[in-house]
C-alpha cells in the first residue's frame, strides 16, 4: 500500500512536471524524491513477494490501513522536503524580498 501511494504521488508530480509548470517551482526535484522512494519500495516488494508469495497481496485490513496511513505521511514528508528546498533555493526571490521588506 505504501508503494502504491508513493507511485501515485510520483506519477501525479511527473504529470505536473510534464505539463510544463513553472520551472522555478522545482517540481522536478519533487518527482525525483517520489520516484527514488518508489524504486526502493519496489525492490523491497520484490524481496517480500519472493518470501511470502501471493500472501503478500492479501494483507489484514488493519495492516492495510496502517500502510495507507504511512503512505500518506510519506507523501506529506516528501512535500515538506520539497518545500524546504524551494524556500532555501528561493528561485523567484520571494523569501529574500519578504525579508528585505520587513527590515
Amino acid at each position: 500500500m505504501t508503494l502504491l501511494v508513493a507511485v501515485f504521488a510520483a506519477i501525479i508530480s511527473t504529470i505536473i512536471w510534464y505539463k510544463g509548470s513553472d520551472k522555478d517551482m522545482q517540481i522536478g526535484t519533487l518527482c525525483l524524491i517520489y520516484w527514488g522512494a518508489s524504486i526502493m519500495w519496489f525492490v523491497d516488494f520484490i524481496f517480500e513477494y519472493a518470501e511470502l508469495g501471493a500472501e503478500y497481496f492479501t494483507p489484514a485490513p488493519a495492516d492495510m490501513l496502517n500502510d495507507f496511513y504511512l503512505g500518506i505521511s510519506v507523501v506529506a514528508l516528501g512535500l515538506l522536503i520539497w518545500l524546504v528546498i524551494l524556500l532555501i533555493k528561493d528561485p523567484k526571490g520571494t523569501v529574500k524580498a519578504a525579508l528585505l521588506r520587513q527590515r
Partner: protein
Amino acid sequence: MACFLVPAAEAVVTTIANKVMKSKEAKEASVNIENVHEEGHSVESKIKFTTKLGWLNKLLWGGSALLAFEHLWHGEVVPFFPFLTAVQEGQEATTEMLSEMGTVGVTMALAVTAIWGGMVAVSSVISKRKAKETNESEA
C-alpha cells in the same frame, strides 16, 4: 531493518563527487569562457554531467529520507543512540540487519543507479538528436 543506509551511503559519495566536479567545471568554464561565447549554442543544448549527477543525488537522498521515515514508523530506527533497534537486540538481529543491507539495500542502490543510467542514456540520445537537427537546419 536498515536497508536505506546503503543508498544513503551512495548518496553521500555522489554528493561529494558532484561538488568536486562542479568546482572543476567552474574552473574550466572560467578558462574557456571565450570558447563558450563562440560555441554558445552547442554548449547550452548539452546537459552538464553535474546536472545529471544531481538527478541521482535527488533520487538517492529523497528515497533514503522517505524510507528512513518508514523505518522510524515501524520502530526499526529510533531517534537516540544506537539509532538501530536491531543493534540493541543483540548479535542475531544485527547479523540479520547486515544481511538485509547486503541484499535488499544493495539491490535498491543498484536499481536506482541503473534507472538513472537509463535516464542519462535517453537524455544523451535526445541532445545528440537535437544537435544533429540544428546542424542540418543550419547547413
